[in-house]
């Protein structure tokens, strides 16, 4: 016990003296949260739209006003088609709308009039927004003009959005981003620590003492678990108290599943570090195995159900995937026992497998 205690004490001294551990555990999450909160907006996009009105009819002017009144659209009216096209080429405009000179005449004759909407297909996502904004504005305008004399619609769908009434994507992205942050803390931070013992030659000294493999693994897990938990609490505090996100679940469940997730990530980090014995390599690998999958394949940004089969199955071994699905429902929908249970079972399995591998790969000599 004295040996384990001394080892843990040493780890904590190192954690406190190494600025990078504080940086990764607290500063980095703050930065990431700020970026997710204020930097990323997946709900709407502001676009610059070019407008060219070939029809001089005053009614068309009200259409132009509808465009400029829209909060997401900045319109610029052009007289010269070539000037407008060249602004599209130079990415000053994301799209353009051209109203032909026979527009009102055709409408007055009761026929279907045409409007040209040009979008920049090199940015597909933005192009979609331009398209839907433009059609939205046009249909709204049409309703007000009295050209359309449609019948009253037979069905009036009543919309109710559950869990996230405001449809604010921050409500799920921020909690989900905990998976990214904790992956970083768990994997990156621990990936460095065993490799560092090898690189600085202290591993050789440790191996020549009574410190056993159990002491070593337990000491590393415990010390960095404590640091990780502090980081987790700090992040939850940021989400709830600072960014004012709704939390409808149970803090105890969050703490328990969070701990499990953290231990799983630390397992990955320690395994990488134990096998490669090189800080640079361990760092690279943990970024590729921790950060990128957490961001891209966890279902946080892109839904897993719409991935190709190969990636869908690949995500099965990613702890982040289970944690993201858990934490989004924990924050927004409250504790749902089925979701908690199934994610806990998967995470526990991964965690134990990793623990076993770490233990097996921790050497008692300088070579196998």
């Amino acid at each position, binding site marked *: 016990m*004295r*040996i384990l205690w*001394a080892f843990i004490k*040493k780890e904590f001294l190192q954690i406190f003296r190494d600025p990078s551990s504080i940086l990764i555990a607290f500063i980095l999450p703050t930065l990431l949260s700020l970026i997710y909160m204020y930097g990323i907006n997946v709900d709407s996009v502001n676009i610059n739209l070019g407008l060219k009105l070939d029809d001089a009819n005053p009614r068309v002017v009200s259409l132009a006003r509808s465009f400029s009144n829209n909060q997401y659209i900045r319109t610029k009216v052009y007289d010269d088609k070539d000037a407008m096209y060249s602004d599209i080429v130079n990415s000053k405009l994301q799209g353009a709308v051209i109203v032909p000179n026979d527009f009102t005449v055709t409408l007055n004759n009761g026929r279907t009039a045409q409007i040209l909407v040009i979008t920049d297909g090199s940015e597909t996502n933005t192009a979609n927004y331009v398209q839907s904004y433009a059609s939205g504005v046009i249909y709204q305008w049409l309703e007000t003009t009295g050209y359309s004399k449609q019948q009253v619609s037979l069905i009036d769908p009543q919309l109710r959005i559950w869990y996230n009434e405001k449809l604010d994507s921050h409500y799920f992205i921020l909690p989900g981003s905990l998976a990214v942050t904790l992956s970083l803390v768990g994997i990156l931070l621990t990936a460095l620590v065993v490799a560092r013992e090898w690189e600085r030659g202290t591993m*050789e000294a*440790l191996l*020549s003492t009574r410190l056993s493999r159990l002491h070593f693994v337990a000491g590393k897990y415990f010390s960095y678990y404590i640091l990780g938990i502090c980081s987790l609490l700090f992040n939850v505090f940021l989400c709830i108290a600072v960014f004012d996100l709704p939390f409808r679940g149970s803090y105890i469940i969050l703490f328990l599943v969070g701990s499990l997730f953290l231990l799983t990530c630390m397992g990955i980090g320690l395994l990488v570090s134990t096998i490669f014995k090189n800080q640079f390599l361990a760092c690279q690998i943990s970024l590729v195995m921790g950060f990128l999958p957490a961001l891209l394949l966890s279902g946080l940004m892109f839904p897993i159900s719409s991935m190709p089969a190969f990636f869908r199955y690949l995500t099965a071994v990613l702890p982040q995937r289970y944690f993201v699905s858990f934490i989004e429902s924990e924050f927004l929908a409250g504790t749902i026992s089925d979701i908690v249970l199934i994610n806990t079972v998967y995470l526990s399995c991964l965690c134990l497998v990793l623990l076993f591998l770490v233990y097996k790969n921790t050497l008692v000599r*300088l*070579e196998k």
Partner: protein
Amino acid sequence: MDTVVINNITKKFEHTTAIDDLTLTIPTGQMTGIVGADAAGKTTLLRIIIGLLCADSGTVTTLGYDPARQKKELIAQIGYMPQKFGLYEDLSVRENLEFYADLKSVDKNFDELLDFTGLRPFQKRLAGNLSGGMKQKVGLACALLGDPKFLVLDEPSVGVDPISRRDLMRLVRATIKEDTTVIWSTAYLDEANSFDNTVVIDKGKVIFHGPPETLAATSADFEREVIRLMGGYEEKESQIAAHYIYRESTVEYPVEALNLLKMYGNFAAVKNNTFHIRKGEIFGLLGPNGAGKSTSFKMMCGLARPTDGTAKIMGVDIRKNPTLARSYLGYMAQKFSLYGNMSVRENLEFFAGIYGIPLAKIKERVGSIASYFGLTVYFDQLSEKLPLGIKQRLSLACALIHNPPILFLDEATSGVDVVTRKEFWCHLRALAKKGVTILITTHFMDEAEYCDNISLFYQGETIAVGTPAALKAQAAAATMEEAFITLINRKDAESGRL
């Protein structure tokens, strides 16, 4: 009873045989020195003895245990100091000691140890902020915790000047009990005579084992005997020098240091350093660690900017035209600055390129220099896989590829075996005879004897300059090592530091 009994052990790594059918016994209660060049197998042998590595074949018994199977029981009785000392740089001296005391489950009364090693004033300092010599002492103190029966020290004196080396030896001698066994590995042959029992290792084999007096009485004789045991060395005419093309110049002093001064904050690393090196002279810079040798060296080649003063290379001011001045230099550093993942040919071609040899002539020059240096057989091997001696030769070839009139060597011979060193010096002397001016730093006192002139450097100042004979006379000493120690102690006494 013997502490260690080794019978016919062999240990192979991926490419090399580190220990080759080695048999050895280490007697209890004595200090045994294991002497050999880098890569001779010293560290592997020590690691096998204490169970950090397992031999491929053969048997080892240490303190009555089998280290391969009973490592846990064995380790409790051993004090081991690995080559990098095993200290946590971000922990203070005291925290390091407490940590290792806990791991060894011994009590934490370090008073005696701290006084003895002179570490008491530095208890609170982080180990990373200590000088090399101090780290060694802390590492030793950690190994000494709990009065181990068997003390294993892996190159405790590497890269350390003769004074610190003597201190450390005295310290170990004074701390151990009568029945404590000590193993001390070293690359310095001149330490061989200070052990009770000396084992000389070469290429994984024991070539001498016994009390050092039985082989030779003095360290100089010991070296000669070891060379004989290694198969002898015959001085041949240096092909390298024979093919060196000397370009005549009228510069009388190709290398000049003029009042060099380097301040780091308020601390003067180098004070007012001035010397002039004649054409064809071998000039040695000697001094304890931290005396300012490396800093002077870096300023001489324009790698560090002098706070004041300057250096002239072939009459060119290094501050005014560093590029031109450096083009006269061939530089060879302590850590071989070769690209390990490039072949011998690629390394040579690269250095030929950066030293400004015209593209069309590179191939021809590389081919010819490789043949003078005997490197043609290794042409397509990766340089990291070469034996140490060949690496060193390749480094010298890279430094000489553009026929420079001046050669700068910064501890170029550390870790190389004695025969290779002899050969290296044979080339250097022959080059000097052809007119190459050589500036060298070294920790080997026997190498200092080969220099034409020596500058003894201490606390940033030159405290003595002259031929080796003159310095020995000045200190009334028989060997260079004694002269070194006497002159530095005298300086200490003058400045009232003792």
